[in-house]
């Protein structure tokens, strides 16, 4: 079965995932909402809820304004453990295409490191995504992160 996209576009998809994780890892949280379309949805749902058909999510941002609110709250309101993140994602699997919208799936992990330089696995899971192909850049229309690590260690602040 041939891929629904060509090599160049596939590379752009890979770059999207890598740049997304990197922005969060270097604390460029302000760049995070820009990876999404204006009407995008970003949802982190515990795998136990996903598997059982229960709707409760940990984070559910509907539209870029809610993504912006997450960032502003993290910067000015919320207090959370001092740490830095490192995203590791699998190669993307393109599962479908409908015009300029791609369906994609990646496995993801996020490591967290504390001020003593101790790294631990913070999150693992799979993300089911839809990506809009624009001329200038690709953006997520929809990210649904199904979190295997739903026994959240301490708290969940910086985005997965």
């Amino acid at each position, binding site marked *: 079965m041939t891929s629904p996209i060509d090599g160049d576009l596939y590379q752009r998809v890979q770059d999207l995932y890598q740049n997304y994780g990197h922005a969060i890892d270097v604390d460029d949280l302000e760049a995070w909402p820009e990876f999404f379309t204006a009407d995008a949805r970003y949802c982190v749902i*515990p795998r*136990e809820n996903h598997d059982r058909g229960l709707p409760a*999510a940990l984070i*559910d941002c509907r539209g870029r*304004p809610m993504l*912006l609110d997450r960032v502003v*709250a993290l910067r000015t309101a919320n207090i959370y*453990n001092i740490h830095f993140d490192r995203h590791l994602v699998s190669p993307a699997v393109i599962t479908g295409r409908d015009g300029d919208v791609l369906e994609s799936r990646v496995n993801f992990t996020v490591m967290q490191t504390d001020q003593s330089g101790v790294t631990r696995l913070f999150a693992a899971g799979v993300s089911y995504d839809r990506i809009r192909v624009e001329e200038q850049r690709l953006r997520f229309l929809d990210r649904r992160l199904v979190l295997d690590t739903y026994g959240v260690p301490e*708290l969940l602040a910086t985005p997965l």
Partner: protein
Amino acid sequence: MQDSDYIFREHDLDRFRWPDADYAHTPYRVFKDSAIYEREMEKVFRGPTWGYLALEAELPEAGSFKSVMLGNTPVVVSREEDGSFSAFVNRCAHRGATVVREEFGKADTHACIYHQWCYSSAGDLVGVPYRRGVSGKGGYPKDFKPAQHGLRKLHVESYKGLIFGSLQNEPGTLMAYLGPHIKEHLDRILVKPLKVLGYHRQRISANWKLYFENIKDPYHAGLLHMFAATFGTYRSTQEGYTLVSDGGGHSIVYSVMGTDDHDSVSEHYKDVKDKYQTDFQLNDGTLLQWTPDFDDGIGNLIISVFPNLVVQQILNTLATRQVRPLGPDGMELVWTFFGFEDDDDTLTDDRLRQLNLVGPAGYISMEDGEAIRLVQQAIQGETDATSFIQMGGLGPIVDADHVVTEVCTRGFWKQYAQTMEFAPREEGAPVPEKAHD
């Protein structure tokens, strides 16, 4: 202080006593000490308490079951054929293996994988392989009685859709244990059949009792949680009430939205850096749009029942939180979010959107995970020091018509210390002999 030579340095728990009868000083070692932890598992979680197990709505059919922890005892709670609920300790009567391995499911019987000893949903032993031997050889003696080898059963009682269990031999009734304040506020929330929306789980590197201190403490809520203070979901300047049970261990804290004004808030928050930001606006204000479920204006209400339950109403979010100790240095918090069966799609959607406010990633709650972790971190190695719990004053542990108080925290320690037999000695009472090494 009496007996100070013995309280903080001795390892003999029978000599350990709370430093004061106001319960305003908590010895930090209670968050760290392994011997104290083991005693808690016995005297608190297997003692004269009722622990929250599950919602009835989580067990919809006959044979539905859920595995939970009560302290460090694994328990399976089930719905029976006749609609009643049962619970057993999840350990095979044969050689101690976990019988039910799944977190949840539905089954008529449970067979231990090791030797296939088979139990009913209520924990009665109903089948034992090769009981009569094979080809006339082996087997159990003729006088083997299955009734003597069932799983240890809990007393189970339900109230308004919440299932509680007790491992004590003869507990009093659940209603006597909960008391009138808790009953009144459970009645307020649990008015209709419930519908489960899902779970959050959080594993915090802190002693379980630090979590209770946290949720019983309205003092911190408007100061640690800036999001709550800014948007008025909770502020110490609002009209609020603090209710505490006779035993001290249960409490209700709530506040009424819209009852403070901008000037009074600015005045009271002026010394608190950045906590009340008048120019902080949400880009999407729908997060905080809510249609009250109840008509009393209460936007934030936290019920806590000693030793393992919190019930919350925060705007439209409704949940139970079950506290599961994981040794002295850790705990698991399991949030069960619910709505009502007759909620329409819009209301359900509101509840789900507002989950952004609560849980381990919640705008108004994530800080709790950090705050109590910081306590556990900083008390490492501490043998003698105590905390200082006097906001709202000392004296009797009774209700207050405000929320600028730590009286519920003192109440928790009172019930804890009495249950653990750590209450201060009466004047003139004899001090036990020091244990010989």
